[in-house]
């Protein structure tokens, strides 16, 4: 579903990614872990076609980036720590706007379906600026799944959420993954990643330092695996 070969990304003289090799199979939930500055967000932005690779090959859903970016974007849903929503529009208006941007026709029933999924049906006519951070993040997920993408990218989705909002987001993420989507999520929260992901990749110093499937790890052993990968 996602194939990345020898990916390098430079900003001026600074090299952020130094030859990343990464592969995700359909239906996998991959947690991309790593310290601050490891290049996780840059990597996800390249997969989302928001940044161009300096070197290397990136294929998402069988389409090459950056040359077939529009095809990739049609199959991709992205959630970041920013909501990507307009505060002066209602929840419904935000979703309607993005539905039109994604070329969806007959989107009314889809908007209702998505609002029910994220538990915001009763707040559909409220301005987004009146929403709590947790509600905005749920609506951001609704925006990202509106066009029913095959692949979801989550960049630190738990940033700034309180305990209740994080638990609610867990449920939404589980629903999204249970629908058979391929998910790549960056996070600092090892416990949450361990609860959700089927595979764990550690990005450190611009390369994938280690990778392990859930079944390869002993129970609650992700922290030790993470520390070992960073030390190595």
């Amino acid at each position, binding site marked *: 579903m996602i194939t990345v070969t020898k990916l390098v990304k430079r900003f001026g003289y600074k090299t952020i990614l130094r030859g990343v090799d990464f592969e995700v199979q359909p239906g996998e939930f991959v947690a991309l872990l790593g310290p601050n500055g490891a290049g996780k967000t840059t990597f996800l932005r390249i997969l989302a076609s928001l940044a161009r690779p300096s070197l290397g090959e990136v294929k998402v859903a069988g389409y090459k980036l950056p040359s077939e970016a529009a095809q990739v974007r049609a199959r991709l849903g992205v959630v970041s720590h920013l909501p990507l929503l307009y505060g002066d529009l209602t929840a419904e*208006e935000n979703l309607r706007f993005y539905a039109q941007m994604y070329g969806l026709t007959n989107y009314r029933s889809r908007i209702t379906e998505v609002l029910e999924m994220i538990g915001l049906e009763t707040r559909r006519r409220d301005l987004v600026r009146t929403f709590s951070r947790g509600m905005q993040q749920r609506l951001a997920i609704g925006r990202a799944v509106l066009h029913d993408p095959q692949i979801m990218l989550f960049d630190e989705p738990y940033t700034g959420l309180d305990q209740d909002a994080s638990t609610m987001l867990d449920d939404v993420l589980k629903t999204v993954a249970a629908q058979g989507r391929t998910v790549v999520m960056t996070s600092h929260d090892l416990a949450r990643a361990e609860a959700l992901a089927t595979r764990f990749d550690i990005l450190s110093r611009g390369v994938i330092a280690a990778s392990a499937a859930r079944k390869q790890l002993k129970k609650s052993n992700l922290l030790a695996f993470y520390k070992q990968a960073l030390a190595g």
Partner: protein
Amino acid sequence: MKQSSEQLSVNSNYVRAIGAIVWKDLRAEFRSWELVSAMFVFSLLVILIFNFALELDVKTRQSVTAGVLWATFAFAGTLGLNRSMALEKDRGCLDGLLLAPVDRSAIYFGKFISNLAFMLIVEAIVLPVYSVLYNANLFQPGLIMVILLGSVGYTAVGTLLAAMSVQTRTRDILLPILLFPVAFAVLLSAVKASGGFLEGADYSEIAFPINLLIVYDIIFIAASFMLFDNIVEE
């Protein structure tokens, strides 16, 4: 046949995306009045400052009308362009737009049309105020055409440069530094053409700056159409 129906669908998505951006910007603005009110108040202040600073007799006052008018539009326009793109950037909405599976020039045209609409709304409010304060009749079809052409050129290049400057930390300072030298030709032609209309000059005398304005409009829109994708991608 299949290829032509696919092309039709791509074109209709393109137009729909432009329409969606314009609808979204107008809807949000008519709810908050954040942008237009700031532009209007700023315009009013500029006009008042010029009015009291230049204590001119009626004849001289008429001769500076075009310059004062375009200085006001340029300053207020810069304020609007900056704010319009900053609203997209601050909540990450620019990324939301860039993630849509449409040609990115659709985003440019959507933002360009809504920025132009905001500028024209402010101009429509400023003109009567200016007419009263400066005792000049500004409601002339020729002058309104020049204002429209000048605003198109200014907003066309301004939207592109605002998309570039909004990605920097010094966006508030950078936009006017980039925009004024590039838009100088548009502003100069607009001032000349406006002055000509206000002084009742023959069309043959005003034709040159008007033709220049049309050429600049076409060049700026075409250049922005080609460059926008490269400017917004990292």
